[in-house]
């Protein structure tokens, strides 16, 4: 039975939702506002919210000093490449766990997730040494592989959860109609799981875009993505918040826009299977 919702209650809930939404968005908003201030205004106390001399100076400085497009391009390739590679590996893995589970499937899933519990810095040296041996330091392909590996447990888990919602009988029917394993995954399972796969891709893309440990530690002059671009604007001696905010705004803008456009898809995917 549906609960009666009074207009008053509805208004309150809406206001609360907006308030929480604003609270979550506030740090981003503050970063964007700070990027239009001068360095002196950026650290003014009490802070200035909207009434300051808006300036584009910081964006000019950042443009002059850094090759933004190179960092952006690296981010797109690394985040995109690691996501695609991850999906290619994870779809068959999740398929087998969801539809042909063994006694140990749950343990394997748990074990995969446990790799996320290790602090990244704990394996920095081994990975660094492997990268030296393979000549992968400061290359995009090296980062694509590492980011794919660290995000793989999450991709497999998400896809596994979505696939479990799809009735096995449909796949069985396809098999009885003579579909091969490849056809079954490619033409039956994948189209049905599109919302799930899409949101997995999006989430993984965002995670890879924002990853700031490996992307800083394994790159130098060539493969640095936008995280390296942001890191170059922090200063131990001197005011930098306005310029850093401008760099941050430029770095998050593409992913923010992508997020806005794919909001529906993202929410649908993330809540897929939540209501039975």
């Amino acid at each position, binding site marked *: 039975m549906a609960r009666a919702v009074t207009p008053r209650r509805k208004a309150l809930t809406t206001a609360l939702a907006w308030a929480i939404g604003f609270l979550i968005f506030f740090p981003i908003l503050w970063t964007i506002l700070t990027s239009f201030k001068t360095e002196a205004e950026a650290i003014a106390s009490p802070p200035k919210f909207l009434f300051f001399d808006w300036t584009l100076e910081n964006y000019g400085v950042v443009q002059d000093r850094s090759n933004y497009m190179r960092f952006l391009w690296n981010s797109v390739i690394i985040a995109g490449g690691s996501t695609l590679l991850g999906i290619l590996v994870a779809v068959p893995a999740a398929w087998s766990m969801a539809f042909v589970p063994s006694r140990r499937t749950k343990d394997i899933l748990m074990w995969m997730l446990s790799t996320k519990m290790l602090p990244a810095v704990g394996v*920095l*040296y081994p990975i660094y*040494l492997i990268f030296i041996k393979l000549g992968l330091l400061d290359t995009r392909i090296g980062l694509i592989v590492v980011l794919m590996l660290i995000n793989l447990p999450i991709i497999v888990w998400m896809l596994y959860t979505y696939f479990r919602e799809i009735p096995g009988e449909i796949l069985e029917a396809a098999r009885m109609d003579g579909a091969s394993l490849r056809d079954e995954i490619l033409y039956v399972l994948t189209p049905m799981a599109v919302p799930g796969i899409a949101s997995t891709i999006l989430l993984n893309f965002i995670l890879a875009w924002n990853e700031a440990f490996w992307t*800083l530690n394994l790159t*130098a*002059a060539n493969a640095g993505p936008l995280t390296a671009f942001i890191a170059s604007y922090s200063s*131990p001696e001197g005011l930098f918040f306005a310029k850093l905010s401008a760099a941050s705004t430029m770095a998050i803008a593409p992913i923010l826009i992508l997020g806005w456009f794919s909001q529906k898809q993202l929410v649908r995917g993330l809540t897929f299977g939540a209501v039975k």
Partner: protein
Amino acid sequence: MYLRNALRAATALSLIAAGGAWAETLTIATVNNGDMIRMQGLTDDFTAKTGHTVEWVTLEENVLRQRVTTDITTKGGQFDIMTIGMYETPIWGKNGWLVPLDDLGADYDVDDILPAMRGGLSYDGTLYAAPFYGESSMIMYRTDLMEKAGLTMPDAPTWDFVAEAARAMTDKENEVYGICLRGKAGWGENMAFLTAMSNSFGARWFDEDWNAQFDSDAWKTTLTFYLDLMNDAGPPGASNNGFNENLSLFQQGKCGMWIDATVAASFVTNPNDSTVADKVGFALAPDTGLGKRGNWLWAWALAIPAGTAKADAAKEFIRWATSKEYIELVASKEGWANVPPGARTSLYENPNYKDIPFAQMTLQSILSADPLAPTVDPVPYVGIQFVAIPEFAGIATEVGQEFSAALAGQQTAEQALEKAQALTTDAMEAAGY
């Protein structure tokens, strides 16, 4: 296609002719400080002179330290030149991780480098990093507030005078605090300041047998003095303040005095950013009459990791960036106030530089700091605001957290010192001292 290749070949040939050797691309890791950014802007001059090109990797200080440490210990070879400080240089030099810089040529005039800088960047008498710019710490104070308090700042004040002046200048209702000092935890944050301060109170980190000394009276006096002073005359929330936070407070006119890096002098006197630019005076860091002042010594220096294939080109860069000619180049493009300070004696003899208001006090501060004999009592280590052993960064950051907690009022000075003593003793024993 043919034309493009021909052009490339011609460019390469001209570069070889210009450089007299194969033109290289150098990768240099550095921090985002004003002087480094200026150097990046002037790289064309280096390329024109040598044919070598430069790729910059600019990182946040702690990220940089972690990044270059990983690379140098694994011989990753990602960087041809690294920007490091006085803490790393002797340790890395000792380990054979850096290329000795003992052959930079007669025209480089290595004897012109300030002796304190040269000493702090050498191991066993060999220079391992060339100072790009150097700094000490000094008092920056508001001349108007000092006058209002009816006091006159001497050039070389004592801690007692500083404390008296700080209390007299404080006007909490109008958000004016007599003194702003570092409180944020970290070996390069509050511990840089407190270790330097403790030297002037006769304290030391270790005795000659590497026993921790936080249970000494001298440390108790240091910490109690600092906490009392900050509670009476410091800004609220000081346990979160580092260099940049204090800089912003001072620039907004909220600090009567600030004891910090000499490089800050050019920021607080810059009328574009500072509301008090024309009311700033300078004095040496305070003492207690024991023969040591509470100022530190630091250099941002350029070093070449052992194992780079481009050591010769890297040396050419270091010769260029830390030369007298480079200082002239910056002065001609950006003015004398913007040249990298604190590295060469000749700069302070230059009549053009003598007019800069903070130049002489910076020099005197640097000259009064001796990293080879930092304390009143003898110590087995080198370094003023740090102890040049690999374990120091970790230990001092933990000690810094205890002292920061004491400043925040979460524990007493005695409790903080007791914990510092225990954790330092444990860590040093574990490290085999």
